[in-house]
């Protein structure tokens, strides 16, 4: 049987003095004071968005949810990434069990090819969605060397690398890589070098002596009517075209038809109109 409580008649009978700022000197006053100062349960908020109220107080879960929401999508450096496997990061992310989340970032430590594009040492990868997988559009790629791609010196004179120079001679290796030939010129004037492609086709053949369209002689002549004017060229064959362009407005209506007789060393230009008209002449090869 419980003992009947003894009424408290004075503060001296209170043996359990509460800590804090309780100012009451008797139990009743203390209970009253505590009842006034305690947070009302009704003010507990579970809203994870929180708010600006000075009355409401959040639950632990609400605080955690709010804090967690503020961390989503922030840039999160996840370290170096070896891209030699030619795949985007699939683990080591900031999510549960290393799941890759939006904002996870890696810096490339070993070059590779991602979605068909080369990625180099120093470049960065950032997931722009959660679980980006191997979809290129789910990743942002930051190129650390936009202006140029550094070439390793070890690539010099190596297959897939670049050609070196030996005493200003361009090194050209044979297909086995066992013999180096040198490509150079003794000319001290500018020269145009045209090389065939893998199919043996040479671009801009008009720049090449003897090629179709190559202009091997130009000059000025004075048209001499049907007597003709001889232009000596010594090409050695008759595979060439002759272009005649009368110069000056005085030639208008006076030149008539133009014809020429070709030989391997000369071409004679005739015009059916007047003589003593100036003209430019251009001879170009027919290949």
């Amino acid at each position, binding site marked *: 049987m419980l003992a009947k409580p003894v009424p408290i008649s004075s503060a001296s009978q209170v043996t359990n003095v509460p800590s804090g700022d309780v100012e009451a000197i008797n139990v009743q006053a203390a209970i009253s004071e505590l009842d006034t100062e305690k947070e009302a349960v009704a003010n507990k908020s579970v809203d994870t968005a929180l708010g600006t109220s000075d009355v409401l107080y959040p639950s632990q879960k609400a605080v955690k949810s709010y804090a967690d929401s503020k961390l989503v999508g922030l840039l999160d450096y996840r370290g170096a990434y070896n891209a030699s496997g030619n795949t985007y990061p699939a683990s080591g992310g900031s999510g549960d069990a290393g799941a890759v989340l939006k904002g996870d970032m890696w810096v490339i430590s070993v070059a590779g090819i991602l979605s068909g594009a080369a990625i180099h040492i120093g470049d960065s990868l950032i997931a722009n969605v959660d679980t980006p997988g191997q979809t290129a559009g789910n990743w942002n790629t930051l190129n650390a060397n936009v202006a140029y791609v550094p070439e390793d010196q070890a690539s010099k004179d190596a297959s897939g690398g670049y050609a070196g120079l030996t005493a200003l001679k361009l090194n050209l290796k044979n297909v086995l890589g066992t013999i180096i030939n040198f490509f150079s010129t003794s000319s001290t004037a500018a020269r145009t070098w045209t090389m065939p492609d893998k199919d043996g086709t040479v671009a801009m053949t008009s720049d090449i002596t003897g090629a179709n369209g190559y202009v091997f002689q130009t000059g000025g002549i004075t048209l001499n009517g049907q*007597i003709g004017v001889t232009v000596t060229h010594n090409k050695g064959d*008759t595979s060439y075209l002759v272009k005649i362009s009368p110069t000056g407005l005085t030639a208008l209506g006076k030149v008539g038809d133009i014809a020429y007789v070709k030989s391997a*060393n000369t071409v004679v230009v005739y015009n059916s109109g007047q003589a003593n008209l100036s003209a430019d002449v251009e001879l170009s090869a027919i290949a």
Partner: protein
Amino acid sequence: MTRINGTKLAIAGFTCKKGKVSAQEVDLSAHQGQVVRVYLDDNLRLVINPQHDCYWQLAEMLVPYASIDEINGERVTLPLDLTNIDITLFNLPN
């Protein structure tokens, strides 16, 4: 070798990359007063003032008219004299 022989232009035989050119000559007297161009055609024969392309031009000259003199009161046409005319000779083909 190209040379004038009387009223004719003559070439000695020679060989070029197109073949063997035989010694031959052409009479220029029918071309008095004309600019004459002498060629080797594609058959390596001499032709004058062709209207078609040829292999090689050998010479070019203005053939003068034959002089006319009066002898014993009669006008006499002298033989065509090409000895002192200016001839442009082109190098023979190799």
